[in-house]
């Protein structure tokens, strides 16, 4: 029923009443016509029709939506009640606002990162092939496969529902109309877009012929790149673009807003192989499950290919290989799952605390109204009898410790609130200590005043170490000549970032080890101010024709050369025998691997090999696909550094676009950004929890003080000191808090295992954090209990007794 506005309703009501009166009058007329006296006619008509006003109300009730009307009445009543109890209203609204706000924020984050379906048709049917290696030492799994595995899948039953791709993009320089710009390229196999379920809006996707080794150089553009760089040219098909200095023919444009497994501007055929790149696990395979087929059934079809290929490649005898499928959504959101789960748990805890708080408040309000009615009803009766001091005291004493059932409920709520509050405080404390630990890690270099930019050398003009080094030498020469620049260097990768890792062997040893690898130009250590502890740094005299050398860091010596002096040892590495000529301080980086015994964390001091840029081989140049070289400048100001970098590169190669220019401090901050975000959010939620617990305790104590004013008055009159009374009341609040703290011990263990995975340098059951959180909460609880208890000091026994 449409809801009639009040002004129309009033008129309608008048109309209806008039109509019913007319009805009654006509009845009367009828009786009168039949000879009944008017007064009797009226009486009879009233008997037949009833009272018009009552009838109208009956009719109205039949007409209305009773639910809606009673709802409106209830809301009006609620508003009136809330206005009468502003304290309750403000506390409730604030509690709800805090909790709903926190909930909404975390949910929208979780929704965006975890729950929003991928933008592909039937995205829940998309999965990535995964390989799991299990050995007595543990198991590892991932979605990277090698060329042989893909070849086996492509011959298997799901061949026409699967596609191979690389799940990372490479930055490259795209030249359009003599202008270079930085773009991201992803290499994907034939059928990739068909499997995803999104086809190009213009043109077509890659054919199997184009996706074979030696196939033509063809490319598909993103809608954004097509619109931005080609002015949305409708005749783009067949045109060529210069990608890394080589011509590629455009055969398609993807729809607006399309985003594949990663963000890219250009897609080119993967052309999978089983050697070279395909010899390692550098590919990923995506599968669209056939309609009606379960994930398990599909796994059964795909597993033999995966296991067969791995076995053919040879695995140690104690390692078992198994193949599987992981839903694409799970893979893409894997990095965010843990933090979001943790935040969700934190928000849930705060929500619980808020519910407990509101329940306690409602109990209190219920108590208030009960008290009011009791007071109004019983006071006259009370006054007529003599006050029995003993019974008042007994009553008071029983209440101070045990109290009525209602109080027990409320106290139970407070206790659980405190327990939940400590759980959150402990989690927040652990995260805070993690962050502090990460922040206090020695950087190992001086980040202040360092400005950096990465430049992609994925360009046909830089295929070998020779061209690469000419670029380095000339640009660095320009940079060093720029006023305001005190030092400049190029390195493959940066501290605080993920760098290349490669295997090496000591001369005369069979087993290989893993190390982080950076090539550096001379002056790198001086530019970064990394102390050289022994030997020498990379010098300009380290050239291709001189003896191959490397510099290693302290971690390298610590993990890989414990028993022998690392200086002078020879390693077989990157295609040459190289002698260790220097030892430098550790710097922090994002780990690409862990050595047994290393502290796991988001940043570590990793065993690192620094080799002279002038002595790199083509294999290292090949890693420019993954890692671009970085130019770093120590200059008087960031602006000077940025300008110097732009001018130096432009003067050597005008077609080489600079990446983002970043201060080293920003690089450092982004390495611990996740920990910082979690610490802030969980910390804020813990504060909310603490506040709510304090509000609850404060409410309980102040209520009980108000309730027991008479008792306190009597006690004071009988000689109790105000101090002891205050102490007793405060202690009752603290006892509740203490019970809560003990209860929490049961809850905290599962809760801290939730944060365990993101902790660094602090044990998940760190006693200091636990005790600290408990003490902190007890202090807050005592303040919350003490404040209302202090009211007792202002009590005047005489007045209290008189009242």
């Amino acid at each position, binding site marked *: 029923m449409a809801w009639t506005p009040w002004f129309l309703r009033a008129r309608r009501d008048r109309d209806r009443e008039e109509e019913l009166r*007319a*009805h009654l009058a006509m009845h009367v007329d009828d009786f009168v016509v039949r000879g009944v006296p008017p007064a009797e006619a009226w009486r009879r008509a009233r008997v037949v029709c009833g009272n018009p006003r009552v009838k109208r109300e009956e009719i109205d009730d039949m007409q209305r939506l009773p639910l809606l009307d009673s709802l409106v009445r209830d809301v009006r009543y609620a508003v009136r009640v809330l206005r009468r109890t502003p304290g309750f209203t403000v506390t409730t609204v604030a509690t709800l606002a805090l909790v709903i706000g926190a909930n909404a924020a975390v949910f929208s984050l979780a929704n965006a990162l975890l729950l929003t379906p991928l933008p592909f048709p039937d995205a829940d049917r998309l999965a990535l092939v995964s390989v799991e290696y299990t050995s007595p030492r543990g198991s590892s799994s991932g979605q990277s496969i090698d060329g042989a595995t893909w070849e086996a899948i492509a011959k298997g039953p799901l061949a026409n529902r699967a596609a191979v791709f690389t799940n990372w993009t490479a930055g490259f320089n795209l030249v359009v109309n003599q202008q270079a710009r930085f773009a991201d390229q992803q290499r994907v196999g034939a059928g990739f877009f068909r499997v995803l379920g999104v086809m190009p809006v213009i043109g077509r996707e890659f054919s199997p012929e184009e996706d074979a080794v030696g196939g033509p150089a063809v490319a598909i553009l993103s809608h954004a790149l097509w619109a931005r760089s080609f002015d949305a040219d409708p005749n783009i098909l067949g045109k060529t673009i210069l990608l890394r200095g080589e011509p590629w023919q455009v055969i398609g444009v993807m729809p607006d807003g399309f985003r594949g497994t990663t963000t890219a501007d250009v897609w080119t055929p993967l052309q999978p192989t089983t050697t070279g790149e395909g010899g390692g696990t550098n590919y990923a395979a995506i599968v669209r499950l056939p309609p009606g087929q379960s994930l398990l059934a599909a796994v059964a079809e795909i597993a033999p290919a995966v296991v067969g290929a791995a076995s053919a490649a040879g695995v140690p005898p104690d390692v078992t290989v198994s193949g599987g499928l992981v839903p694409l959504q799970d893979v893409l959101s894997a990095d965010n799952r843990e933090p979001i789960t943790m935040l969700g748990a934190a928000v849930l805890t705060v929500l619980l605390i808020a519910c407990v708080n509101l329940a306690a408040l409602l109990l209190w309000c219920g108590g208030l109204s009960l008290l009011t009615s009791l007071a109004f009803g019983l006071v006259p009766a009370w006054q007529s009898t003599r006050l029995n001091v003993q019974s008042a005291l007994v009553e008071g004493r029983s209440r101070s410790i045990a109290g009525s059932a209602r109080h027990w409920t409320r106290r139970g709520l407070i206790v659980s609130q405190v327990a939940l509050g400590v759980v959150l405080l402990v989690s927040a404390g652990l995260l805070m200590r993690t962050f502090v630990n990460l922040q206090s890690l020695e950087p190992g270099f001086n980040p202040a005043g360092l400005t950096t930019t990465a430049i992609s050398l994925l360009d046909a003009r830089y295929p070998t170490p020779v061209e690469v080094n000419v670029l380095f030498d000339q640009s660095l020469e320009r940079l060093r000549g720029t006023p305001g620049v005190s030092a400049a260097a190029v390195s493959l990768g940066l501290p605080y970032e993920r760098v290349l890792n490669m295997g090496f062997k000591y001369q005369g040893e069979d087993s290989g080890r893993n190390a982080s690898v950076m090539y550096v130009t001379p002056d790198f250590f001086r530019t970064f101010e990394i102390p050289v502890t022994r030997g020498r740094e990379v010098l300009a005299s380290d050239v291709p024709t001189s003896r191959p050398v490397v510099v290693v860091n302290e971690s390298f010596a610590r993990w890989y050369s414990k028993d022998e002096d690392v200086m002078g040892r020879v390693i077989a590495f990157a295609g040459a025998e190289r002698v260790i000529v220097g030892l430098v301080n550790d710097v922090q980086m994002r780990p690409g691997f862990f050595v047994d015994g290393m502290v796991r964390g988001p940043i570590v001091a990793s065993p690192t090999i620094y080799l002279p840029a002038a002595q790199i081989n083509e294999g290292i140049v090949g890693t420019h696909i993954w890692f671009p070289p970085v130019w770093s400048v120590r200059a008087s100001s960031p602006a000077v550094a940025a300008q110097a970098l732009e001018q130096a590169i432009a003067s050597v190669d005008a077609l080489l676009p600079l990446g983002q220019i970043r201060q080293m401090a920003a690089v450092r901050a982004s390495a611990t950004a996740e920990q910082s975000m979690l610490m802030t959010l969980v910390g804020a939620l813990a504060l909310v929890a603490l506040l709510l617990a304090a509000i609850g305790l404060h409410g309980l104590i102040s209520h009980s003080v108000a309730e027991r004013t008479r008792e306190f008055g009597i006690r004071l009159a009988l000689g109790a000191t105000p101090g002891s009374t205050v102490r007793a009341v405060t202690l009752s609040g603290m006892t509740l808090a203490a019970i809560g703290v003990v209860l929490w011990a049961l809850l905290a263990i599962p809760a801290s295992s939730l944060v365990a995975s993101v902790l660094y340098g602090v044990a998940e059951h760190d006693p200091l954090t636990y005790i600290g959180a408990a003490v902190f909460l007890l202090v807050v609880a005592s303040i919350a209990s003490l404040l209302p208890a202090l009211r007792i000091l202002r009590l005047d026994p005489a007045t209290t007794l008189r009242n």
Partner: protein
Amino acid sequence: MLVLALVSETPRHGYEIGKLITERSKGTITFNMASLYPLLYRMERHGWITGEWRERPKERRRRFYRITPEGEHVLAGQRGLWRGFVSALDQVAGLKES
């Protein structure tokens, strides 16, 4: 259907409608005020009838209801339905013979 049939003949006021139903059904069907008016209001809301106040000299002000085209349509449908129903009852229970 009864109300629609009556107002389809000519516009009528509520009292007249109630009275005619009682008269024509020879007292078998009666409407009291509390059930007749809600029915009228509901039909008005559905758009099957419209009411308007009419005033004549020396007569009291009364609200007359007339049928709308939509009401005509509903009436035709209901007549068909009831006709079918009555004939079905007849065939099963032999109403006309009794």
